[in-house]
């Protein structure tokens, strides 16, 4: 509770004292938007942590070895993540649903376990330390990026691209028969999402002083967490995943009374939200929640039968 009192009584002090948290919210928001884009085009891809890893390692290594400025490193890293996204997308995007999800898990774990943990330049299991990280400057950079990205993606979903994606998501065969180039539009969504994830990874590497190749950072655990942002928040609207990211990142602060049992409370919270609002927090139906079957209901008035 102290957390929220601080937020409202002294916003400026809050901003400087919770820099890392605010930065993390922005980064999670960007990754959640990247997840939103693939889901919006009907693809259950869990590849985001892989692209984040590429963004993080490339940007930090460029800074360490070539001493190029941070902004350029991040841009190059994001572009490279997009390029890898294109190359991975070529074979993978033929798959659908759970198959795509598992193939992308194969990609991120092969990248993490097979490459990152075994190539000397990445620091292997120890990770990389990034002396050029700048938490406070980072946050001032992350928040505008986040807002711009969410706005751009929102505009994209409202345009021609967005219509094509929505059509593909609802029925791929029907979209194909309407002359929509399904493979191309899926690839566009996948590559943009890879770009965003790569950018988020680069930002994250410059927010903290260490790039950690752990499971929770670039592995399946992270992928599942990102998926949770999107599904919990609601994947029908751009703001849904962002809200999901915000809520999940803040959960430990909201339920700080739970102490060490925080994960139990978070798990119950996840189940409850998804059961009572399967469409996500931001979604159709306004604020209505679906009532459980045992909830008392008003008796329905049946129409009088004619005659």
């Amino acid at each position, binding site marked *: 509770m102290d957390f929220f009192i601080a937020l409202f009584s002294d916003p400026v002090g809050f901003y400087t004292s919770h820099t890392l948290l605010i930065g993390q919210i922005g980064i999670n928001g960007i990754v959640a938007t990247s997840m939103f884009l693939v889901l919006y085009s009907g693809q259950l891809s869990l590849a985001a942590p892989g692209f984040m890893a590429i963004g993080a390692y490339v940007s930090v290594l460029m800074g360490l070895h070539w001493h190029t400025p941070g902004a350029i490193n991040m841009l190059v890293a994001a572009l490279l993540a997009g390029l890898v996204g294109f190359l991975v997308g070529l074979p993978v995007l033929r798959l659908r649903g759970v*198959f795509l999800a598992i*193939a992308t*898990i194969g*990609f991120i774990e*092969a990248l993490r*376990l*097979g490459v990152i943990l075994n190539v000397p330049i990445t620091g292997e299991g120890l990770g990389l330390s990034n002396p050029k990280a700048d938490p406070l400057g980072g946050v001032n950079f992350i928040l505008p990026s986040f807002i711009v990205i969410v706005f751009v993606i929102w505009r994209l979903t409202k345009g021609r691209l967005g219509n094509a994606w929505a059509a593909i998501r609802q029925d791929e065969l029907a979209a194909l028969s309407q002359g929509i180039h399904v493979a191309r539009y899926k690839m566009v969504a996948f590559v943009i999402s890879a770009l965003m994830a790569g950018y988020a990874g680069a930002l994250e590497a410059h927010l903290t002083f260490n790039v950690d190749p752990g499971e929770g950072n670039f592995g399946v655990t992270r992928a599942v967490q990102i998926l949770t942002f999107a599904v919990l928040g609601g994947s029908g609207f751009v703001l849904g995943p962002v809200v999901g990211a915000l809520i999940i990142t803040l959960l430990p602060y909201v339920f700080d009374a739970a102490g*060490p049992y925080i*994960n139990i409370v978070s798990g119950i919270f996840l*189940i409850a939200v998804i059961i009572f609002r399967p469409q996500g927090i931001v979604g159709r139906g306004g604020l209505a929640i679906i009532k459980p079957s045992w909830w008392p209901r008003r008796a329905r008035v049946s129409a009088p039968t004619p005659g």
Partner: protein
Amino acid sequence: MDQQIVNAIFIGSIYALFAVGYTLVFGVLDILNLAHSAVFMLGAAVTYTLVVSYGQSFWVACVGGILVSALMGLVIEHVCLRPLRRRRAPPISALISTIGLALVILAAVEQGKPGSFFAWLWKDGANAVAFPVSTIPNPTWHVGNLTLEAVKVAIIPIAIALMLLLGYIIRYTQVGRGLRAVAENPRAARLMGLDVDRIISLTLVISSALGGLAGILFGVALGGISPYMGRDQVEVRGLAIIVLGGMGSVAGAVIGGYLLALIEVLAFITFNSSVSGGVAFAALFLVLILRPQGLFGTRLRERI
């Protein structure tokens, strides 16, 4: 080398048992039950606690562990799956609700320390433990240059017998016919007078009991019982196995389990320990791209 291959067969049996439960639920419900690895861990943790904290014999504890796992199957169905099914929620929401339950189970065991609220369930916190040596009789034989421990050798017939039994049930009994009918088309199955909810509950009970047993066997053979054993050891491997074998195919999951263990051992021999995990996932990636229906899957559902 020979010893490594033998080890691959032990581990493969455990993987197969675990993956059979995974694939059974996917086959019937088209849902990935991500709480399955938590049930795997819970089975081992409960058995360990019964032996160490409550002084039960290993066999009694085993039965207890399997019962708790089976019960957890009912919890998964009633808490995570049935409410969503009633609402015709998309399958992806079941993914999230089972993740939520996995989080709860893992956190409960992780917080089990002497003096804490969950001390009755688990007393070693985040540490990895093994069954005390005296609790399980474990004669060891030397055949040629191989070392065979009884507990590891016993895993193979146990796993194979259970999988054959499951295959028999699915293929030849009334229950199995109901199960296959629901897998084929739940709506038609309901119209034919089948109690679909009950069949799905039963599927989850069988799946979770097998998952819990796999956890117990893993703990017996390899030690390393910890709150993270499911997440770290079998969660992603289970996914890889059911893809290798073809989603929803029980026989495929069995073969996939042994195959993955073999690939890992060969990669371990050829490269080193950390690359081997990567090789397994690279294999998974390749199989999905070249043969999306899995090595032994026959059909890939196409929406029309």
